[in-house]
């Protein structure tokens, strides 16, 4: 563990408020020697939102599926130094014990509201079964909770909508149902995997503010998986930026946006280093994410980085502190020193 990890945890609040803490999570598949997720660490505190940002294929969805115990293993190989969720290590739980957590203490909503609901069951059946699975209540009580939850996600006529089938609802409504389904048992952690990507822009804002609002009243920790920096800026407290399976930068959202340190983060923002010259501007990142079989041996961003030198190509850079709670995985940090003056 590096100093940066410690400061990150401080930024996320007191240790006892930590809902989920993961250290050194690595995930590979089958016999491939390359880890698609390599040495990822983070913490989410109660009532906090941690955003995992990155392009598709950076490993953010695999990470979230692994945390939910939804990654079939084998073929997946999941390794980690430590993980803590409500005082237990979920990644070492048996299938049954993990299933007891899922949908109860940790819940997940997905990118595709159109296909994530089962077409042959009513909305009510799908919410109620989640309550009955985890709570020792009768059907009437479970139904009452489902109605209350639907009302809380602002579905008009919740009582009546309980009998609706998914195909009778719009995309935004379905995502509201998914959120209701995820939160009905008041989980401590909500993993939202690109919850607004498939929705219209106006609906996106509604869904995000709904999640924020519910979080404010329940204190649920949110792990928000997204590729959209606008979403991050609006909703997250903390951010980790992933590239090709590695965390390249992490920190409080203000620090990351005002002073991005990793060339990849800077490229993502289409911004310039805060103290650099105008010529140092990076408007887009040249090239594309290499396939896992061709990940560079050193820094995985080296092939696309304008600052990369021999050391970058050869050795994996460590996470180094760039500010309070702000860490970056780059040999050239702080980047200002390397910019042409």
């Amino acid at each position, binding site marked *: 563990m590096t100093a940066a990890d410690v400061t990150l945890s401080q930024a996320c609040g007191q240790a006892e408020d930590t809902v989920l803490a993961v250290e050194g999570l690595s995930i590979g598949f089958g016999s491939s020697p390359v880890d698609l997720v390599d040495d990822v660490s983070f913490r989410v505190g109660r009532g906090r939102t941690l955003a995992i940002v990155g392009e598709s294929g950076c490993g953010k969805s695999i990470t979230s599926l692994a945390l939910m115990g939804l990654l079939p293993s084998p073929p997946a190989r999941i390794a980690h130094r430590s993980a803590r969720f409500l005082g237990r290590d979920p990644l070492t739980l048996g299938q049954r014990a993990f299933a007891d957590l899922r949908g109860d203490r940790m819940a997940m909503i997905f990118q595709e509201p159109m296909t994530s609901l089962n*077409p042959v069951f009513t909305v009510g059946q799908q919410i109620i079964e989640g309550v009955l699975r985890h709570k020792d209540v009768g059907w009437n009580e479970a139904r009452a909770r489902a109605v209350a939850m639907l009302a809380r996600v602002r579905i008009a006529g919740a009582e009546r909508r309980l009998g609706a*089938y998914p195909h009778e609802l719009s995309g935004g409504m379905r995502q509201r149902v998914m959120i209701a389904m*995820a939160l009905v048992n008041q989980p401590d952690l909500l993993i939202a995997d690109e919850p607004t990507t498939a929705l219209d822009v106006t609906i996106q804002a509604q869904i995000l503010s709904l999640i924020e609002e519910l979080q404010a009243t329940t204190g649920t920790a949110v792990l928000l998986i997204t590729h959209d920096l606008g979403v991050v800026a609006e909703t997250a407290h903390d951010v980790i930026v992933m590239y090709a399976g590695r965390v390249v930068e992490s920190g409080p959202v203000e620090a990351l946006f005002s002073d991005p340190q990793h060339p990849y983060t800077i490229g993502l923002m289409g911004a310039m280093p805060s103290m650099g010259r105008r010529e140092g501007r990076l408007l887009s990142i040249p090239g594309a994410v290499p396939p896992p079989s061709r990940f560079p041996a050193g820094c995985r961003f080296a092939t696309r980085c304008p600052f990369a030198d021999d050391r970058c190509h050869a050795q994996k850079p460590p996470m180094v502190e760039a500010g309070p709670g702000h860490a970056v995985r780059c040999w050239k940090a702080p980047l200002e020193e390397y910019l042409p003056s």
Partner: protein
Amino acid sequence: MLSFVLRRLAVMAPTLVLVSMLVFSLQKLLPGDPVLAMAGEDRDPAVIAQLRERYGFNDPVPVQYLHWARQVAHGDLGMSLRTHQTVAALLAEKLPPTIELAILSLLVALVVGIPAGIASAVRKGTMTDHVANVVALSGLSIPHFWLGILLILLFSVTLRWLPAVGYVPFAGDPAGNLIAMIMPAVVVGGGLAAVLMRHTRSAMLGVLNSDYVRTARAKGLLFRAVILRHAFRNALFPIVTMSTLLFGELLGGAVLTEQVFTIPGFGKLMVDAVFNRDYAVVQGVVLCVAAAFLLLNLAADVVYMLINPRLRRPR
């Protein structure tokens, strides 16, 4: 729903007319003449001419068809040229064993094929999957009559557990009837189980990767609920289709199996009738099977509407 069923029933009539026309014409294309067979050894030209006249074989084919169709419209399927029984009586006699064999075979197929298909999909790539696939492939490849003969050798000749041949009407002796039907149902149903297993497997594989199955698992539902409630309910559609088609085929009669186990069913009736150019019987059987097929398809569509909310009218 009711109006849907009525509309579908209305469409069935022209379909049946077309089928009967087709079969009627095809039969007339077949070489061979029933009259020659009926006329006996000496083939007296006068007798032949008289017979031709009597059965209307001298009329043009369309006229013969209309004549037959008019009879059918009045509820008369005609007489067998060979046995001089009415076709209706023949059908009434041969239909029950065929239906019984069809139902029992389908039961065997469903009970064996669906669980095997689910298991091999859920355990894709494991030993269970491989074994199920090999068994299914064997089930598809082994000829029914040969498997039937082997079973008779084992269970009737060697072990003496089951009767080798002989059909016992259900009404007279239900237990004896069912015992006699075990082997035929296993032989026919086994082959169908293989078909159903393959279809169940591929349907389940498609559904198991779907987002809503992932959602069901994310809810913490246990394996059984995820597989049987969320996945299987959605894999059911192709299975219903396949079962319907298989059942329709069975109603046409399992010729070889009926032969091996001497079951007096549709298959043998049909084959005999075709060989004897017993036109009225062929027409009657075809009409009957075609109507059954259409009704089954209708039933399948109704089942679809029951299990698939997307097909129901929005409220």
